[in-house]
């Protein structure tokens, strides 16, 4: 009984954090499902991929991969390049996922951009179980993405309503999370490094291939400035 209460409490705390994700994932998931549908794939494809990959940008890319010639090596390299940022999420969560038992596997499995951001940035109250909170954030997000993608794959192009611009909900969420993190820190060296490195790499390498160079620049920047950043003690 007590354990049930603990889970329920974690669920109730987690749910509000996922509302923006619901809006964003349903919109993007529907779009993705519709895109697959009009590309000639059955709804089984978006359904299976949303469950197993659970990473929006790659799933969109996979549509064109599936439509072109079979190229396993090229696909693998592409996947690693697009998904490399998850390495950072893992490093940031190493300490926080300790002692989570079996839940840990699902938490790692479901760690997409949005789930990582919420689980990292959320102010979880002292009396709420952190493991279950993160578990429910992951589960809800996974469910939103899966249901949106599957539904989009089923109803396909029958949908017509003016949702132009709704995808901005994801940008708005990342801006808020960035801001929250900004306000938590006394010094902003690391935030500046992230913004500057990504912006410069975007300009140099273009929208399709700036992520990996950005990540390299960020690690190099953080490594060279380690003494300064640690001495300043601005890290939370």
């Amino acid at each position: 009984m007590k354990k049930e209460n603990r889970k329920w409490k974690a669920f109730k705390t987690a749910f509000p954090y996922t509302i923006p994700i619901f809006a964003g994932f349903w919109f993007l998931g529907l779009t993705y499902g519709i895109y697959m549908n009009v590309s000639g794939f059955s709804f089984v494809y978006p359904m299976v991929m949303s469950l197993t990959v659970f990473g929006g940008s790659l799933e969109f890319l996979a549509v064109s991969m599936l439509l072109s010639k079979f190229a396993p090596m090229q696909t693998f390299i592409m996947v690693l390049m697009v998904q490399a940022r998850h390495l950072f999420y893992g490093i940031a969560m190493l300490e926080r996922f300790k002692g989570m038992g079996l839940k840990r596997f699902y938490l790692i499995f479901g760690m997409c951009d949005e789930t990582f951001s919420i689980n990292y940035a959320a102010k979880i109250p002292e009396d709420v179980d952190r493991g279950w909170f993160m578990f429910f954030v992951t589960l809800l997000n996974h469910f939103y993405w899966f249901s949106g993608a599957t539904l989009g794959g089923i109803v396909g192009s029958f949908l017509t309503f003016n949702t132009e611009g709704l995808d901005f909900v994801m940008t708005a969420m990342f801006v808020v999370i960035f801001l929250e993190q900004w306000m938590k820190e006394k010094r902003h060296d690391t935030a500046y490094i992230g913004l500057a490195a990504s912006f410069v790499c975007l300009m140099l390498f273009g929208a399709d291939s700036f992520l990996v160079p950005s990540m390299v620049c960020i690690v190099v920047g953080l490594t060279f400035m380690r003494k300064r950043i640690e001495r300043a003690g601005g890290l939370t």
Partner: protein
Amino acid sequence: MTIEQQIITIGICVFGTMLTRFLPFLIFSSKKPTPEYIRYLGKALPSAIFGMLVIYCLKGVEITGGNHGLPEFISIGVVIALHLWKRQMLLSIAGGTVCYMLLVQMVF
């Protein structure tokens, strides 16, 4: 592509993704203490990552052409203003999104 090739391609997507998600946890086991440098990165990275994700969301914006990213920049301004004012996550996100939708549907 044959159906087998499609299954392999999807399998590669799953495997590659899980590799990037699980690798740090496989390298740095939870039984041994994590090296100092990695712990430092774990703490220093998130702010940089969130900055990178914001830029990532805006990667499609054309600064030099089109509407010069005005709807994006105005709406981000609204998000920041709302958040500094009320500090209610849902309000800031909803306000900024509605603003953006109005701008791209009616103004630009």
